[in-house]
């Protein structure tokens, strides 16, 4: 098949702006699925995705479309909706020549729209502006078109007005995909190079790689090599999603499909890797490959200690289908056995937690998220630190760097003041403000990731009455005035409670921890000092007063059995506690100190 008749495209949109509905409609109009089948939004194959209105994993569907007497092959490549999956989005977009940029006419351009449009532009994908939900009474297609033109540079008269729900304008849009988006270049005579833009793990067949062939071709029984990880495999099956899995003999230059090649574990495949022919390899891999970067970390502990093995099994299962997620066993004297988990970003973390609870019915306690730091030691080495406990001694640190992001917030003009205040209090530096329309504005900040991972989004939603949207993209590590604060209970530092924070907020954060600790630790036989320290310097203190009276007044003959039971119970209560420097701390109290949910 000539590449002239192939169109590879994605749909990018903010959550709930209609991406999945449009995909359904396109599949319906091309005959890929019947109306009835389309009821279930086929591209989203996990409940949770549907419920949250977002797509976790990219998929690809191949459809046929008649136009001008010719049959075109349309490959719709789905993208995750959130920039936490920035890298996956960029890989999916780079498998396409173009993208439909869908904006809800009742909502206007949102932060994610902008972030995704930037991404598409960065991989040279052609953009078609699509204004959705134009049939709703509250639709403001003209204002939306203006916003699109203003922020994204797509001329307003070039935007398509559609209703994905009713199908209005979707045919015209399909025609535009054929006429406006470029076909893939024909590189069939060159050595094989196919981009892995997504992968998933099937219980029976092993890993299924989603690929876009850029040059040469893939054939069944071909010996292929993953250039990034350096492994070779034999292709056992090739195919396309129509949207059901339909095996084919070969995938040619410009085509999109799946590869099954006896790959057992998802971790054996990295998204962005290049597949080439082992005997006749490409000179170099396709550009843009970066190993997934985890920026946000959080500890997960089973709510009930006996759930630890179940939690491990659950994480193993999750990791099978999510190569960006990592977990390392963690044993803290304070908290017991758990896992330190790494995520691409906040939303990714939330999704993992939800899947964990939903699919495994395990109650977990999750600590407040922290970020990765970069440390330049005095011996000139640079290392990444994911846990404050791993931070070398201050004397060995030359520079401590924290991750920064470019943060985009789109909001209404009347909430600018509040948002600016919030941003300033979180060390965010305003880069620019851009009026999208008379009453909507986009603010761009340079922000320390640590300041936005915790409660920033909730506060933003509060200030803007739910209106503001935000998105961020990692820009790099920068040196910061960062300190490690230690929490001392009865003068013993508690590793699990140490934090790396900016010096300006150290005392405040430390004090908050102390207040929580004071409430969570029961009174003891002695006074318990609680302290926050930076190095050897105490910057805040509290204390838990001892209890003054705990004695049975009367104990005579008839009371012994009953009293012994009461004492045993009292002892049992202590047993369930963690002992730190002679202080007995209930484990759930510890959890409540670290729990991010309040």
């Amino acid at each position, binding site marked *: 098949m000539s590449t002239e008749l192939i169109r590879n495209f994605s749909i990018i949109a903010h959550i709930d702006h209609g991406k999945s509905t449009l995909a359904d409609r396109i599949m319906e109009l091309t005959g890929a699925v019947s109306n009835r089948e389309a009821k279930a939004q086929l591209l989203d194959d996990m409940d949770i995705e549907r419920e949250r209105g977002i797509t976790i994993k990219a998929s690809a569907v191949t459809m046929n479309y008649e136009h001008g007497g010719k049959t075109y092959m349309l490959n719709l490549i789905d993208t995750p909706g959130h920039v936490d999956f920035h890298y996956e989005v960029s890989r999916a977009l780079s498998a396409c020549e173009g993208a439909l940029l869908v904006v809800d006419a009742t909502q206007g351009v949102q932060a994610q729209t902008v972030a995704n449009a930037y991404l598409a532009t960065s991989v040279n994908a052609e953009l078609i502006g699509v204004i959705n939900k134009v049939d709703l009474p509250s639709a403001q297609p003209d204002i939306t078109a203006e916003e699109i033109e203003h922020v994204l540079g797509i001329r307003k008269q070039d935007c398509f007005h559609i209703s994905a729900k009713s199908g209005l304008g979707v045919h015209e849009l399909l025609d535009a995909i054929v006429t406006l988006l470029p076909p893939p270049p024909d590189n069939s005579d060159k050595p094989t190079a196919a981009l892995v833009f997504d992968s998933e793990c099937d219980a029976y067949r092993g890993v299924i790689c989603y690929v876009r062939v850029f040059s040469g071709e893939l054939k069944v029984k071909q010996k292929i090599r993953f250039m990034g990880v350096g492994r070779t495999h034999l292709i056992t099956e090739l195919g396309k999603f129509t949207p059901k899995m339909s095996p084919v003999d070969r995938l040619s230059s410009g085509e999109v499909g799946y590869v099954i090649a006896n790959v057992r574990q998802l971790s054996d495949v990295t998204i962005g890797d290049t597949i080439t022919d082992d005997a006749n390899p490409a000179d170099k891999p396709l550009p843009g490959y970066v190993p997934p970067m985890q920026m946000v970390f959080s500890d997960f502990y089973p709510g009930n200690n006996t759930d630890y093995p179940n939690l491990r099994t659950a994480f193993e299962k999750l990791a099978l289908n999510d190569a960006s997620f990592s977990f390392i066993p963690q044993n803290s004297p304070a908290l017991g056995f758990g896992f330190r988990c790494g995520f691409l970003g906040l939303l990714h973390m939330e999704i993992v937690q939800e899947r964990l609870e939903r699919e495994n019915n395990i109650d977990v306690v999750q600590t407040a998220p922290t970020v990765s730091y970069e440390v330049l030691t005095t011996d000139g080495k640079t290392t990444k630190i994911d846990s404050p406990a791993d931070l070398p001694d201050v004397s060995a640190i030359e520079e401590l760097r924290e991750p920064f992001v470019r943060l985009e917030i789109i909001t209404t003009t009347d909430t600018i003041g509040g948002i600016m205040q919030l941003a300033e209090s979180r060390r965010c530096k305003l880069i620019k403000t851009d009026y999208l329309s008379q009453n909507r504005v986009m603010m761009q900040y340079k922000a320390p990731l640590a300041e936005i991972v915790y409660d920033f989004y909730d506060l933003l939603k509060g200030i803007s009455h739910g209106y503001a949207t935000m998105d961020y993209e990692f820009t790099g590590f920068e040196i910061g005035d960062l300190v490690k604060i230690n929490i001392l209970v009865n003068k013993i530092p508690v590793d699990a409670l140490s934090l790396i924070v900016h010096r300006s907020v150290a005392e405040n954060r430390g004090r908050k921890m102390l207040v929580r600790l004071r409430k969570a630790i029961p009174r003891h*036989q*002695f006074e318990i000092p609680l302290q926050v320290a930076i190095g050897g310097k105490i910057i805040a203190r509290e204390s838990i007063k*001892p*209890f*003054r*009276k*705990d*004695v*049975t*007044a*009367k*104990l*005579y*003959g*008839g*009371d*012994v*059995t009953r*009293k*012994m039971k009461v*004492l*045993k119970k*009292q*002892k049992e209560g*202590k047993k369930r506690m963690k002992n730190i420097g*002679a202080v007995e701390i209930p484990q759930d109290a510890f959890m409540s100190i670290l729990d991010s949910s309040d």
Partner: protein
Amino acid sequence: MNSKKHDFEPAGLYVHIPFCRTKCRYCGFYSEPIKNHAPRRLISAIITELTEKRGQPALSNIEGEPFFKTIYIGGGSPSCLPAKQLFQLIGEITSRCPKPEEFTIEINPGQVNKDTLNQLHTAGVTRISIGAQSFNSEELIFLGRKHSVADIGRAVRSAKEAGFDNIGLDLIFAIPPSTSLPSTTLETGRAGGSTLKSWKHSLRSAIDLGVQHISAYALTYEEQTPLQKAVETGEVTPVNEETDRQMYDMTIDELEKAGFKQYEISNFAKPGFECRHNLNYWANTPYLGIGPAAGSYWQGKRTLNIADIKKYIEAIEQGKNVTAESETPDNIQVACETAVLNLRRRCGIILDEFKKQTGFDAAKLFAEPIGKYKKLGLIRTTGKRLYLTRNALPIADSVLCDFSTT
């Protein structure tokens, strides 16, 4: 019978008289209003129980008599028994257990006159324990006591005149103020409740009466008592912990200043006047309890009798067992119980005796809590003893619980 001189250790005998004129609102002991029952039948039943248990071989020494070193008649209010039944009971006991080292009876102020006290002395009772509770009228009202402050003095003086030289008073501190009491019942017009001042007054008054023994108890909110319910409904607010602590500290200071020695968490005596019967409990040596709801530690078993007068009497009359609950602690349990009870004494665990009694080396068996609490200054050890420090006494349960299991 075998030829050994004794086939059991010397023990104590406790007789529980579950009658009261009225029930005090704080009291968690089993008792019923005496007017609801015929005391005659109960006393016969108690005597039957004693006779039957006396007949068990293990209860007897070679002479065929039970070997009770101490006798204690408590309640309830033994003093509310009609004189006839009271002296019948005492007569039956002394005929079976002659010449005990100590024979105590509990009395309530206002319930015994001089004659009765004279008779008690003559009948062989050696020690009088008086339920004084407080020398402040408001507090007595709050507690539901029916006697007056003056009754206490009268009872002590009468006992002395009757020849008793071993008299103990029970006192209660940390009594909360009550807003529900009609102010007209109050002499001072304040809503009662112990203050440091009122408690000091009670202590001084007790000392001034020249008694040999004082038990000072912090008010305990026993389950299922009207007082406990009043706390739950918010009608009564317990005295705050700090005041409670200060009162306890003051108790020790005041009584020791007056020549009393603290020998147990709540018990103080002039030298030589410690209550031997109660020491028996804290030594964890055997005792036999008879009467409804009485507890025994006998032949390695801890038992509780039926806590119901009617059912108790019926069981006895039908020749049935009156044990309602029974437990046989294993060796470790015995060691733990012994440790917990011993540690309530100021002298603590006497290591040799503990070893002989339980077979365990206390220092080894409880090495962990001993180490921990020595560091915290709550336990001290000498070569011979292991005991709670003065600082540990007010918070003894938090320490003792670590000795409740190994």
